[in-house]
């Protein structure tokens, strides 16, 4: 396809010409009065939905509307980790689809998302966790997803700075390793999908806030926005922490509460951590970016919030735990901490598909783990929008599961947070 013009060759040509040949990565069109599909939310999931809607389902008369700037929500605030070591087959299928799509994404959308499959290590601190890890390894094998348990010596080789000594508050017996897990440059996912969707004809409309809906016969006929009224045949929603507000405007309720999830980085230091590590003992996860910053995250803040500002006790918990795990990190300096608003549902599994409004479809509930699922979330919501029926992989993730209590609770099954 002609729009795939990012390459070393074009960089060299551009350099020779003063870099004046580069086009807009995506346009900023005025919204039209009517679209086949309006997607609300310019984060990773919304942008991926737009892209797959155009690419896979051939629907291109699409507007993606975003309150602020694309990728400005959780897509641009997360700790950039990806993995697919989920146990329930239905979860494994979704997250593994996401990881597989990520694996081919840079070339698919001609944008370097810097997928770095450096390996995801879940430390094992005690016998109970070891049994849980064994169960997980066995279950993943049944699901056809890679993952293995490595012993403490291998862990020490991979993480030479890890505190495995006698003074460690959390002893290390080994780790669960998913080699395909790793990190991705988060902004690149948003920008790459935006550019690709734009090139396929999708209108990306930023600074366009939803103010309400006009409904008729149980269907939404148009979206009232800060940039005017936009008519639509179908509507897709992918707004993570703000899902309840959209649902409110459309007249239904969701089992969602919005909470702050914090993340933080240190000042950049020379490479010292080559993998992504999570300690179930503390709930803290760490990786080191290409720029050398240590990126850390941990548990949710205590209370419901749309504040996008974290609270210090959580920072203290995360930093203290990171230093307990890696005593040398005491010397690194915390440079910045921030928060995103995540959409927490009772079983920490996504909600994808039909809402009580006939032509509105939703993708939410990813909680703390939405980034790693972006391509799959987009693909599955696009399918719902195109076919008005759930994608086979999304059947168990409908909103109706909260009526039968058939939850997909990975964390509960694992006995540890995920």
């Amino acid at each position, binding site marked *: 396809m002609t729009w795939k013009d990012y390459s070393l060759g*074009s*960089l060299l040509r*551009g350099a020779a010409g003063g870099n*004046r040949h*580069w086009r*807009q*990565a995506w*346009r*900023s069109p005025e919204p039209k009065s009517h679209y086949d599909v309006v997607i609300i939310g310019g984060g990773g999931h919304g942008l991926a939905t737009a892209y797959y809607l155009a690419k896979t389902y051939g629907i291109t008369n699409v507007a993606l509307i975003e309150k602020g700037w694309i990728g400005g929500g959780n897509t*641009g605030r997360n700790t950039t980790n990806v993995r697919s070591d989920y146990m329930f*087959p239905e979860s494994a299928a979704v997250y593994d689809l996401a990881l597989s799509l990520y694996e081919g994404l840079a070339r698919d959308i001609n944008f370097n*998302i*810097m*997928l770095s499959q450096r390996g995801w290590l879940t430390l094992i601190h*005690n*016998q*109970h966790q070891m*049994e*849980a890890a064994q*169960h*997980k*390894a*066995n*279950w993943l*094998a*049944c699901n*056809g997803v890679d993952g293995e348990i490595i012993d403490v010596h291998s862990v020490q080789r991979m993480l030479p700075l890890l505190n495995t000594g006698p*003074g460690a508050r959390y002893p290390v017996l080994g780790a669960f390793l998913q080699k395909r897990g790793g990190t991705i*440059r988060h902004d*690149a996912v948003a*920008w*790459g999908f935006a550019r690709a969707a734009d090139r396929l004809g999708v209108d990306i409309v930023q600074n366009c806030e939803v103010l309400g809906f006009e409904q008729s016969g149980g269907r939404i006929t148009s979206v009232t926005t800060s940039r005017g009224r936009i008519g639509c045949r179908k509507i897709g929603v992918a707004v993570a922490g703000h899902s309840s507000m959209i649902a409110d405007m459309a007249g239904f309720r969701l089992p969602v509460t919005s909470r702050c999830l914090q993340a933080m980085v*240190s*000042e950049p*230091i*020379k*490479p010292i951590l080559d993998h992504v590590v999570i300690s179930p003992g503390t709930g803290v996860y760490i990786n080191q970016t290409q720029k*050398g910053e240590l990126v850390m995250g941990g548990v949710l803040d205590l209370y419901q919030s749309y504040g996008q500002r974290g*609270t*210090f006790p959580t*920072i203290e918990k995360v*930093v*203290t735990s990171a230093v*307990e795990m890696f*005593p*040398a*990190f*005491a*010397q*690194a*300096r915390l*440079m*910045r901490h*921030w928060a995103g608003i995540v959409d927490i549902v009772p079983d920490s599994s996504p909600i994808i598909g039909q809402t009580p409004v006939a032509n509105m479809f939703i993708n939410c509930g990813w909680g703390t783990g939405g980034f790693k699922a972006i391509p799959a979330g987009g693909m599955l919501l696009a399918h719902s929008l195109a076919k008005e029926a759930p994608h086979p992989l999304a059947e168990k993730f409908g909103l109706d599961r909260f009526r*039968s209590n*058939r*939850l997909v609770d990975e964390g509960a*099954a*694992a*006995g540890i947070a995920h």
Partner: protein
Amino acid sequence: MTSAKHGYRLAAGGVIDRQRAVSFSYNGDHLRGYAGDTLASALIANGVGVIGRSFKYHRPRGFYGTGMEDPNSMLAVRDAYGFEPAIRAGQVRLSEGLEACSVTGWPSPEFDVAAIAQLASNVLGAGFYYKTMMWPNWRLFEPFIRRSTGFGRLDSAISRREMHHRHEVADVLVIGGGPAGLTAARQLAHSGLKIVLVDDQPRLGGALLWEAVSFDGVPASEWVDRTVDALKADANVTILTSTMATAAYEDNAFTLVEQRADEHGVRAEHHWKLRAANVVLATGMVDRPLLFADNDRPGIMLGSSVRRLIGEFGVAPADRLTVYTNNDSGYLTAIAARKAGIDVPVLVDTRPQGQAIHAAAAEQSGVRCVFDSQIEGTSGYKHLKAVTVRGSSTVESIRCSGLAVSGGWTPLIQLAGHRGVKPVYQERESMFVVRAAPPGWHVIGGAAGSLHLTTTLAQARAAASAIGSDRGVPMEQGADVSVDCMSYGSISPQWIPDCGARSRMWVDFQNDVKVSDLDLAARENYVSVEHLKRYTTLGMGTDQGRTSNINGLAVMAGLTDRTINAVGTTTFRPPYSAVRMGTIANRRDGDLHQPRRYLPAHAIHEKLGGVLEDFGWERPDWYRSNGADRESAVEAEMVAVRNHVGVFDGSSLGKIEVTGPDAGLFLSRFYVSNMATLKPGGVRYSVMLKEDGVIFDDGVVACLGPNHFLAGPTSGNAEAVAGWFEQWRQTEWPTMRVAVAPVTANWASIAIAGPCARDLLARLEPDFDISPEVFRHMQVREGHVAGVPARVARVSFTGELQYEVSVPSRYAASLLNTLLERGSGLTPRAVGMEAWLRLRLEKGYIHLGSDTNGRTTPLDIGMGGIVAKRKDDFLGKRSLSLAFATSEEREQLVGVEAIGGTLQAGGRILASGHERTPCPSEGYITSACFSPSLGKSIGLALVVRGNERKGETVSVFSDGSIIRCRLTSPTFYDAENKRLNT
């Protein structure tokens, strides 16, 4: 090292102590400075010009500032107490023997081979990496990129700095000890209010330490001393110097980092959490750079930094200093330089002469001023050699070794930003200011954009008065002082110069972001301020955009025809200045990281060779005294229980007294079994559910007497269950006459189990009848054993005759000792967790959290009959009639026996007809062990439709291999319960 045309020490001046020389080293060279120097001022005084290299193009970098705004001077620093892998030289106070090393440039900042990257600078423009390195795989390129990034290497040396936590409450927190903060604090002092004044420098005074100011005709330093003395005279005033207010949070909570230094370095760090009713933000402002071609050469420095170098440290940055400004504060720099004997060939003002209020003063001190002029370019690679000045009709080249620039001022309002304040751009002063301060805050002085000291002092007095009247305290009326100093005047910014190549104009010196990169970002539609920042990495370095942000977004505003307010700033995120992670972690390492909980008989377990593990409590997993290794010891412990008697410390088991007329009814609302019908002396096992129908906890409830129950939740849930009871009592059933009292730690519970358990109990001389026909299984007695108050429950987790003896915890050690010592002939053994869990597995009792998971209901573990019998309601019951609980896919608890091979917990049970993975699976082995009593490998499993599949043979996948197993009843041992009823 280098010639004197670089920096040098002035013969006089500064507040350094010239009597106290301090020796230190830089990249192995031994240098000298003075007490009172920062590492930056000492290095400049020693003529160090190139301090590092930029990130992308490895351009030579010199000191651009003297404090934390400096994007360039990251160094590794070691003092007597600790090591900083990378810190700005301006943030380090010189100490004896300090060692500093470069962290950028290889082999040295002076000569860096990677500077060759500059040749490819057109290719390496903004975001170039998003457009390439996709084939075959980013992982191929990543290692090269990673190796080139980062400042400094962590080392493994343990810091000797002392760490403390401090928590404090104040009426007023004054942040900044300059003229504004000092004035506000001085006026609030002696009012009875508790005031905390913090300043990040070791010496109070702020800009008064270096600006030419006098108060009532005397030098500012005297006013500072007088003010500080007055503050110190008030016991309610706490002055924290070398203390950075690092972050502001809700409810006016702050974190502060206080450094306590001696002549050898930073000896201690105190991490403060401070909450204040009122806040005075008096953090001042910093100069910003001007954009022009080749504005990044070493030798170019912010004007305010030049004045500070001269005034505070007695250091000249160069012997021949050009000044470039778009506002009146540049004149202050020129005049200060002249006074210090520095040659100032020219002052270049972008504005017309009419605007320059200090032009005459500058010319009087011998400075030639040119107006309506710009610097078009500079020359010199590792050090500035000359600048080209373009006037309205002239172009001249000025030879100089230094260039002081002032492109306007940036108030330091980051802390307000932490609270969600959106700064507003004020056109007239060309700066972002706080319009709506957080509740209780007063922003004053430079932080409020004040450009004249008189205004600053008035703002400080007004803030103090407002706080005083707010709090209703008497306030000393501060005497008006007459201030003699030069105003910063006015500004007319010109963001993008109309001459010079944009690809040579640096906006971000650390990350090598140039105007041409912003051009490219604008062309590619990365025009939102956050996109701009992320795409170009503008302001994302360790300086967090202190010098680059405003210029960057002003340029973007120009490129996209928007106002600066429309572009907006990026959000200020805490901390204000990077904080060592070790400072935050402080002393919370090892055992202090998370409290450990110890059993009351801990010392005895240690004496017995107990291998302690953290099960929420430190509990013996097995005892070395029972065997050489875990397996043999565990087997010996199991055999002891099955054949004679074992002694197990179950003290961590929860104990909650539930009392009052409605206690039984209350408990029956939680448990699946009806506890209201329990008679005094009776004990009943059951499970409790959350409202979604999932098992939350299990355990026994004992009825100790009328209206008096003792609930026994699991060790791990003891506190959660007590909280759960209390929450329901308070929030849903406030009229029930019931009290909930968790008393777990008060009682030590030692279980004795085995055929000889009764004999062993008898040796404790209980003062009640323990004969089997009187004290039966599932009964409880209160009385005395071994002469102390005791509660004894006859319950069984092991399948054997078992008593759980509870005594006040102070007797735990003695009880355990007595049981093991008095048991002669009965050969009692101490039994650890592992043996205990295997014994119950043989019996088929569930272990909560192993054999149940977060989706297991009582219907899944064979308690459906009990649920069906309950007519009244209990928590979670309604959910058991939802589709999920009764569906065909439920996993139900069964036993499994290996047919050859060894079972392991976690093995997946494959769907029938499947023998290799990947394939569908239908459940898993929840617990497994080799049973010495049965001589085979057994386990429990949660299996889809398990109840109807007993007897079926299944394949279990575990650790890469498949073994065959038979599904059975969960009870492997003594199905008739003869043993526990003996």
